[in-house]
């Protein structure tokens, strides 16, 4: 029988994988994808809590929908910025985006 803790463990693992990817990957688009992974992990947490803690209400589901919408807008702006960088640098390797330091 699946319980709340299974969903929470799943989402914690997904969140950690996403965070690890953000810290270790070099391609800006993959970093954006890892951020999406973190947000989706949060969505699982929200929906699971909503189902198990307040089953009569849809608070968590509504929250998750808002997160999905905002994540889409964030990805749109992010991709636009990455395009602008690619035009200048012909590369989206974040280790090469290093004009600004200390």
């Amino acid at each position: 029988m699946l319980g709340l803790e299974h969903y929470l463990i799943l989402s914690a693992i997904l969140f950690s994988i996403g965070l690890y990817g953000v810290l270790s990957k070099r391609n800006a688009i993959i970093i954006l994808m890892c951020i999406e992974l973190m947000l989706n992990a949060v969505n699982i947490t929200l929906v699971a809590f909503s189902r198990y803690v307040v089953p009569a209400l849809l608070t968590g589901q509504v929250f998750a929908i808002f997160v999905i919408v905002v994540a889409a807008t964030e990805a749109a702006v992010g991709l636009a910025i990455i395009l602008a960088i690619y035009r200048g640098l012909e590369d989206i390797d974040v280790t090469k985006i290093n004009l600004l330091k200390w």
Partner: protein
Amino acid sequence: MNLALFIPELALVATAVIVILLDLLTEQKRLLAQVSISGLVVAGGVTVAMWGHNFPTIFNNMLAVDNFALFFKMLFLGVAFLVILSSVDYVIKFARFQGEYYALVLLATLGMMLMAATTNLIAIYIAIELTSISLYALVGFLKDAKSTEASLKYLLLGAVASAVLLYGMALIFGFTGKTNLHDIAQSIQALSPPTLFASPALILGIVLLVAGFGFKIAAVPFQMWVPDVYEGAPTPITAYLSVASKAAGFAIILRVFFSAFGQPDWLSQNWGLIFAGLAVISMTLGNIMAIPQSNIKRLLGYSSIAQAGYLMVGLAALGVSPVGDILGQSGVLFFLASYVFTNMGAFIAVIAISGKLNSDLIDDYAGMGKRAPLLALALTLCLISLIGMPPAAGFMAKFYIFSAAVQHDLLWLVVIAVLNSVISAYYYLRVVKVMWLGQAASQEKVPSSAALRLALVLSCLGVLLLGIIPGYMMRLAELAARIFIP
């Protein structure tokens, strides 16, 4: 529900749309700034008229229209006014999209106004993202290599911070089953165990919230984006980020931590200590890293990290004090108001000087005392205020915050803060020394436009007035902070 209470926000949205459309129709780009400013004036007028009444919350308890929210709304509208005034000449650099620039500034202001007013976790998240996404685009507006790089760094780190913040919100929602801050407070007070480790989900949630908000207020260790973004962004946007975004972060911290986690005492003392720790490292690291900087925007970036540290001294004092400490709360609000005027003034002077020099290097500021005496005088006043010396506003602000901290047995924290102020005097005064005693590379005068001069005069007046007669602003701050007294 009363839509009339939402007029300031609606006015900003309408102005933003009008400015974008007008940009397509007219060749007179100055008109865009005038329309944006008139929108801000309308919103500001309505906000001032709403002050002091006890309005109910609107949108199903999503938004509060209390004095606290109105205080910050006035602050943000004022900042947006100054930013748009100081952008009028700057935006000539952009061949296209001037309408979008003003519209994004207005929308970011709208997001901040909502941040100060929200009383619900979902609405808090939406407001933060509305602000952040507008700011990501604004930071990259110059479209050169530095600006896009700054914008990418801001976006990636900001997105991670908001994911962390969301995870914290999800845990708190799961722990209490509520998203409204007052309901959360009730669920927490109904808890029986008076110990820290009996409710790990709540503690983890609070820690994650601190991390997410810490990014917005640029507290160490969530400050890595600050110097890079400040250097790369268009200077008016740097000014906007350094004052409004930080003030909005503190507004939301105050609201969330007082409405939801203000009681019981064991909880508030623990988050007070978290802020005390962050204050120590923010002040120390910000000030020490500012010393070797050669670029004035980076210097002000590190200085803003240190200023966030002083503000967190105030938060720490509030956390450890019993409920209803009005002096401490209004001290934090007063510090924010004085910081807004001071840092805005400093950045407007930098916009004027660097716009002429095409350089942000401190060494190039040599001889500014002769080339542009009034600009140099204004910048000197603002830097003195940032150090915290009388007669400028910064002195009174630090006085209020530090005395609140001493009253609540945080003497050690105040000693560290005062030592840090001494360190900070070194690098602020270095700029002053270069300006007044350095040899000028050329004798050419540095001209500034009427709009910039007006913005600079307003900021400097604010700095002086708050420093010499602080009582009036203090009373406003006390009225605003009164909503947290149960």
